[in-house]
């Protein structure tokens, strides 16, 4: 009779012990499987969050220290060679007169000043990456964002659209403020038309407005356009600009890499880096990732604790049971069975029970995953109003598939091999003669 036969006979003839072991391993398997599932879900949510929110850094001229080193198109090309850079947004701020728009009235309207028609134009290569939108102060309600290939496109606020009866597809006409131009340039100024491709809503106003605010400072009057459109005005007067006056925001794939990418900037090209101010921002990611990272850490600790307690409990139980098997071990040794063969038989018995237990545990996890998902959501997410505002949602429990089952089976098998090994070796390391003396 071989090991398999002996193992099966032991399990089937010792139903109480097999039942206790099965129950214990089902409980351990279910707990570990749920922890692994929660851990995996948190991990994948973190990865998705990193990808979604990203971290970014902004480079612009360090005017505070008297520098005027603008970020050029060539510099942008050099920086985007870094494989961690996934997108960028070049920014300019201009002030143009609105030809066919009525702005929300401010100080200049009350004074009858023509500057009442002057609007702030926020030029972007990719408006979705502008901080107003990234930080969710503004939200695009209709249409689409300005993308790098656009030319002559604009986004306006919902209030401005309603005030002027405009919608997506309509056009607005803008003209350069010529008060600072010389006479020759003034002759060259002409209006340009931009198509409205999106309408945004102000969720949280960033500036403090009062009745005394200038029209161009009132956020409802802000107009987003593409940078190429703004450059057209300067082409008209013979001023060619290939730079972003308000700097450029570069978005990295993994916010955790932000510091490393920023540190490597000075190695790029022949630029006067002292003349630039570089600011990093991954606060959104850090704030949003906090509950997920907390969950991830707790789950890791739980897996270790459960595995540790399980190993100790199993070792104690198996050791107690092993005392009842001294007689059996002695018989096998007297029959010339190898110690390794006896050890393997004990492991096989427990591994067979474990295999059944983990399949049952897998079934239990499938049934209870929704309940656990809700419990996890309540425990770790939206605990405070502040956290509720973050862009983090409780992770959906990853379905426990073959990989998770194998992971748990691997952990379980390791615990069982260790526990069985320890308890069996305490007897098996004895001399056969001493075991037989114990028997009699």
């Amino acid at each position, binding site marked *: *009779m071989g090991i398999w036969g002996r193992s099966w006979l032991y399990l089937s*003839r010792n139903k109480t012990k097999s039942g206790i072991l099965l129950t214990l391993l089902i409980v351990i398997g279910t707990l570990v499987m749920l922890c692994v599932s929660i851990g995996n879900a948190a991990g994948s949510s973190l990865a998705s969050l990193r990808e979604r929110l990203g971290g970014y850094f902004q480079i612009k001229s360090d005017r505070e220290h008297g520098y005027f080193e603008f970020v050029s198109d060539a510099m942008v090309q050099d920086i985007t060679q870094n494989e961690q850079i996934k997108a960028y947004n070049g920014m300019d701020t201009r002030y143009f007169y609105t030809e066919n728009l009525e702005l929300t009235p401010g100080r200049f309207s009350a004074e009858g000043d023509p500057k009442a028609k002057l609007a702030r134009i926020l030029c972007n290569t990719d408006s979705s990456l502008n901080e107003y939108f990234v930080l969710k102060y503004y939200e695009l309600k209709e249409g689409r964002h300005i993308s790098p290939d656009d030319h002559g496109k604009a986004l306006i606020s919902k209030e401005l659209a309603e005030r002027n009866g405009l919608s997506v597809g309509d056009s607005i006409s803008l003209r350069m403020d010529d008060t600072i131009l010389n006479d020759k340039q003034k002759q060259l100024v002409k209006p340009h038309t931009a198509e409205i491709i999106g309408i945004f809503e102000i969720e949280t106003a960033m500036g403090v407005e009062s009745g005394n605010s200038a029209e161009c400072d009132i956020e409802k009057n802000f107009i987003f356009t593409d940078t190429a459109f703004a450059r057209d005005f300067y082409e008209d007067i013979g001023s060619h600009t290939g730079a972003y006056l308000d700097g450029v925001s570069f978005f990295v794939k993994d916010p955790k890499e932000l510091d490393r990418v920023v540190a490597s900037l000075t190695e790029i090209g022949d630029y006067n880096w002292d003349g630039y101010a570089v600011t990093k921002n991954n606060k959104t990611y850090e704030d949003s990732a906090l509950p997920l990272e907390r969950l991830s850490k707790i789950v890791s600790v739980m897996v270790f604790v459960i595995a540790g307690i399980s190993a100790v409990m199993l070792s104690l139980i198996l050791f107690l049971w092993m005392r009842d098997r001294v007689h059996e071990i*002695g018989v096998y040794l007297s*029959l*010339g*069975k190898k110690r390794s063969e006896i050890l393997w038989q004990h492991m096989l018995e427990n591994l067979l029970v474990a295999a059944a237990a983990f399949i049952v545990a897998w079934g239990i996890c499938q049934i209870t995953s929704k309940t656990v998902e809700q419990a996890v959501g309540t425990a770790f997410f939206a605990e405070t109003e502040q956290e509720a505002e973050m862009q983090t949602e409780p992770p959906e429990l990853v379905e426990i598939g073959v990989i998770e089952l194998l992971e748990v089976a691997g952990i379980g098998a390791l615990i069982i091999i260790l526990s069985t090994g320890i308890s069996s070796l305490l007897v098996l390391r004895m001399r056969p003669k001493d075991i037989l003396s114990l028997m009699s």
Partner: protein
Amino acid sequence: MGEFLLKDITYYYSKDRLILDHISQAFESGKIYVILGPSGCGKTTLLSLLGGLDVPKEGAILFNGTEVGKKNLEAHRRANVSFVFQNYNLIDYMTPEENVQLTAKQDALPILEKLGLSPAETKRNVLKLSGGQQQRVAIARALASENPVILADEPTGNLDETTAMGIMDVFREAANDYGKCVIIVSHSHEVAKRADVIFELVHGKLNCIKAEDLKGAVEE
């Protein structure tokens, strides 16, 4: 079986008191040997050495010319010797048939039936059998292994006289029909009288005695 030989073996727990004192003895197949002696004289120790459960402090045990040493004790127990113990030492959650199958190189049922167990009894749990039946199962296990030597430690110690003699008949069959070398450690003179060769272990020495001299041998 070729030669099963004790060559000048000595065993002790402390050097000032020898349990086995330079013993040399050969054992042949087809014979029953009984070793008599008082409790604690070293009979079981001698049987342990013969069975590869321990090794002598000095001297050598040779089986077919190969020394039974620390490296091949398991192989010796597996291929050369079979044990029969006073308390039977069967696996208690198995049936007689399954116990015999642990070592069987042949079908277990015919051997069990030949030793007097009914087909129904061979399928019962061993603990539901009488002492004599359990000992027959243990002997069946030894026979089924086809190992040439049977080492029996007080095999009739827990049995009444009639059952004990029945067991001795089985050993006789094992020696005569199966050609086994049967070495029995016992206190019983009745058992010894059924042997081909009788030894008395006294003060570490193995002395051969005749059946008619048994009155002088130690019996507790």
